[in-house]
């Protein structure tokens, strides 16, 4: 189908009063020779009818809409045919700049020029839908998380393959006498839901359970993963849920807390086993009359687990309540540094207080075993060392170690170096940099990916994901982690987490089959295409892809796995020969958009500064600045990009050689606590930028002309000030000598 561009300008929301719409029409009709219409309310029925009439008549297939931000009214402008291109005249022009001003008008005209140029460059993406797509979900791990996921996925109509390493289902939860309450009034321990769940899973025909097996090899991509199990069987699955859970921290390392000195010094796991057996007794066979729980045993301790496992406090509360229930005369102490009872477990804490459990704030400094056990507590509330004893039992509340690897399998040499520290490979001075370390054990899925067999993990060993925005996502598309392998959590949270991972799996299965991207560019049909004739086999794309979507073939050429791709364009920005492109997103397109802007002569004293803004955070933050009517310099021209990672250095040199006085890059915070939606796109941009000074020197330009700014979506009030400061700084350097060349 031939592409026919038509522009539509809206004069509503004050655009008509603040701008000369006739002049804007002139830009389209004279400079681009395209039809243009304006309407006083384009998003209304009458306005939409104008566009629809042209499209139905076949005069226009790709509308360019000059109105509000592309982030609003998306449902109104959802038109048949190509996705409309939106020029932002409202939030980023008239709401953030004075009405009727010459500079405001110039900004609006340049926005139209950029978007008209974009329209001439985009093509309708052809989605990847080759071959068969499986709808089966593989669940790895048959504990509470895995069983819940399997059960929920089958309820949603999917076939499930559940693989458990041990001979029996249940995992850690099989040993629980009761669980921390997840239902109101959150007062008493709840019965363990596991036996019923196992029963249900075993009775479900659409769930195939394979016990005593692990995953030997995984290749392919979402919708078409090829999985080989240790029993030799092979399966094709659409998505994978990783529910390998946790293992308790090795208590033999806790000899400083008396573990091993007496059989009556036990871990919380051992105490749970006693409770499950029915009656808690000491080694001597009597019921304990005085029991102390030591919290944070080996947790929040740089020599052991540096993190908080979040559930140990509520587990101790539960066990303490059970002990006082069994015998109200028992003296139960909980020695804590901070009581951490997130959410509704605060109610459970109250319940334990009502039951008469005594909470001692302080650190257990010594555990001695003589006639009875004595724990010396540095009591923070009494400001003295208190010898607590004689005690009949001591319970060490140990934390969770994620099963991000299979501890029973041999470690693989290859890929281990990629496990850590790759989020922030180029840290700035003072940035937190995790030590590159390899957790013991072999890969869980043994991914046959260019970027190694493991799922990338955080410094503490938990599976890496965009923690706040997309918690279930791992950095391998189509593989979703749930339960304690992702972060420490209790059974109630695991239940929700498993359901979330199932929903994510269903999303990826359905999207992949249609060639759609999954989050954050949901529905994007494009995917990277590589012109191998120009490829130099430099491998930057295969190494830099945050999601491991690009493999290498036997000739070292890159091979894109389209359904693994999240469409950030980091490969496109990385490619030194610019041979990677999307149907609707190319370096050439961005470069043409940059050059489409009118650069006034030096003597007009109107500098032009290019702002390359990340679409996920910086661009909406700039919109919000407009919504709040924060004013900023009209000399900037905003170029939205999918991710700062997709920014090729060519854009900067093109901008400077075509007369822009400076370039500001606005992206998400890189580093270990990254906010980048594509994990390390902004880190890659930062890295590329560190090389720009040579380019600038070769052009005999000042380094100050190019700056990178961290922007979060909440920076609407801050960014206008940042822009004004940087514009002033660039202005002080003086006009770009390339102007007018």
């Amino acid at each position: 189908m031939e592409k026919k561009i038509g522009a539509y300008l809206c004069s509503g929301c004050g655009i008509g009063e603040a701008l000369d719409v006739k002049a804007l029409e002139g830009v389209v009709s004279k400079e681009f020779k395209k039809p243009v219409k304006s309407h006083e309310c384009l998003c209304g029925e009458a306005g939409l009818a104008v566009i629809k009439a042209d499209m139905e008549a076949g005069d226009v297939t790709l509308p360019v809409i000059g109105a509000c931000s592309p982030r609003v009214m998306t449902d109104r402008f959802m038109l048949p045919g190509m996705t409309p291109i939106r020029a932002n005249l409202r939030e980023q022009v008239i709401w953030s700049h004075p009405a009727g001003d010459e500079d405001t008008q110039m900004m609006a005209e340049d926005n139209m020029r950029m978007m008209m140029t974009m329209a001439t460059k985009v093509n309708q993406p052809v989605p990847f839908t080759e071959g068969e797509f499986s709808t089966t979900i593989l669940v790895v791990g048959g504990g509470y998380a895995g069983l819940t996921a399997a059960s929920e996925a089958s309820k949603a109509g999917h076939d499930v393959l559940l693989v458990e390493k041990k001979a029996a289902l249940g995992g850690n939860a099989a040993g629980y006498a009761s669980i921390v309450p997840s239902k109101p009034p959150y007062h008493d321990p709840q019965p363990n839901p596991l036996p019923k769940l196992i029963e249900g899973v075993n009775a479900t025909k659409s769930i195939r359970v394979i016990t005593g097996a692990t995953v030997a090899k995984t290749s392919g991509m979402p919708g078409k993963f090829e999985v080989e199990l240790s029993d030799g069987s092979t399966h094709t699955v659409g998505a994978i849920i990783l529910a390998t859970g946790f293992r308790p921290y090795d208590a033999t390392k806790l000899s400083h807390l008396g573990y091993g000195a007496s059989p009556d010094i036990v871990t919380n796991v051992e105490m749970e086993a006693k409770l499950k057996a029915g009656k808690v007794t000491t080694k001597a066979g009597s019921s304990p009359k005085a029991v102390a729980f030591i919290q944070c045993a080996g947790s929040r301790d740089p020599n052991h687990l540096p993190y908080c496992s979040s559930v140990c406090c509520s587990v101790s509360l539960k066990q303490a309540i059970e002990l006082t229930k069994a015998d109200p005369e028992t003296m139960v102490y909980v020695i804590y540094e901070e009581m951490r009872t997130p959410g509704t477990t605060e109610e459970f804490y109250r319940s334990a207080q009502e039951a008469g459990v005594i909470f001692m704030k302080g650190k257990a400094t010594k555990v001695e075993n003589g006639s009875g056990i004595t724990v010396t507590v540095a009591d923070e509330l009494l400001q003295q060392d208190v010898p607590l004893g004689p005690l009949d039992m001591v319970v060490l509340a140990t934390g969770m170690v994620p099963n991000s690897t299979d501890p029973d399998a041999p470690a693989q040499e290859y890929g281990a170096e990629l496990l850590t520290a790759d989020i922030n490979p180029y840290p700035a001075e003072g940035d937190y940099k995790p030590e590159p370390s390899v957790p013991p054990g072999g890969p869980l899925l043994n991914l046959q990916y260019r970027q190694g067999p493991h799922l990338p993990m955080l410094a503490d060993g938990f599976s890496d994901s965009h923690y706040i925005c997309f918690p279930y996502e791992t950095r391998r598309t189509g593989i979703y982690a749930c339960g304690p392998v992702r972060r420490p959590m209790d059974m109630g949270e695991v239940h929700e987490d498993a359901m979330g991972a199932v929903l994510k799996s269903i999303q990826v299965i359905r999207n992949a089959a249609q060639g759609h991207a999954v989050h954050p560019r949901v529905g994007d049909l494009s995917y990277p295409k590589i012109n191998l004739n120009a490829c130099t086999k430099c491998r930057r794309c295969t190494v830099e892809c945050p999601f491991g979507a690009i493999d290498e073939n036997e000739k070292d050429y890159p091979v894109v796995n389209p359904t693994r791709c999240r469409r950030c364009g980091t490969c496109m920005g990385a490619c030194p020969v610019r041979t990677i492109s999307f149907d609707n997103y190319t370096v050439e397109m961005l470069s043409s958009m940059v050059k489409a802007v009118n650069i006034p002569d030096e003597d007009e004293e109107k500098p032009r500064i290019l702002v390359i803004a990340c679409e996920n955070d910086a661009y909406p933050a700039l919109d919000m600045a407009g919504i709040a009517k924060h004013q900023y310099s009209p000399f900037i021209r905003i170029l939205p990009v999918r991710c700062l990672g997709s920014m090729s250095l060519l854009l900067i040199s093109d901008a400077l050689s075509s007369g822009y006085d400076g370039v500001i890059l606005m992206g998400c915070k890189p580093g270990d606590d990254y906010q980048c939606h594509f994990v390390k796109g902004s880190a890659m941009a930062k890295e590329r930028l560190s090389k720009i000074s040579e380019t600038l020197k070769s052009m005999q330009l000042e380094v100050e002309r190019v700056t990178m700014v961290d922007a979060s979506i909440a920076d609407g009030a801050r960014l206008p000030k940042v822009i004004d400061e940087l514009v002033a700084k660039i202005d002080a350097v003086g006009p770009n000598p390339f102007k007018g060349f």
Partner: protein
Amino acid sequence: MTISPTPKRAYDLNFARYVYENIDGGERLRMCMQCGACSGSCPIGKQMDHGPRKLFMMIRAGMKEAVLTSNTIWNCVSCYNCVVRCPRKVPITYILHDLAYLAVQEGYEPAKKADNARFAKAFWWSAAKYGRTDERLVTGKYYFSFGIGEGIKRGLGNQAIALNMIKTKRMHLGMPHAIKAKDELQKILAKAAEIQERHGKGA
């Protein structure tokens, strides 16, 4: 007289459990989460050996003697700031007052000597005997509880105030006022004592 159990080691809970079960408001004390809102809002916290927060932790720690000899229980002025602010609804003021009563009963020296205790005794004596408080009798009884010499000294020291009070008819001369049916009052008090006894508290 020993009423409450005396712990033999740190964090022996027998005294804490006695407080939970017998002290006015004590049943809410187990809900104390040691946030310190009470001590932080106490207007006279600086005049206390320990703030209420720490005193409550000492109860749990079995430090009975330290609790019942502290001046905290006597210096509370019943402003109820802490009670209003306590996130766990612990009636701190009640607990402090009843602990003070326990200290008197158990005969701790500071409880015998405490100003507040002397005044409370004088007040109660007048109220129980006449059904009213008489300024001269209450202050007299209070002053002379320190001994005859000290009583005279204190009385003379407040002479000017007393004269002014008489002048403005705030204090009268002559026989103390009494309620009409004093025997009825005695019956009521006897009944109250009986109820208190039945609820397991000492006289």
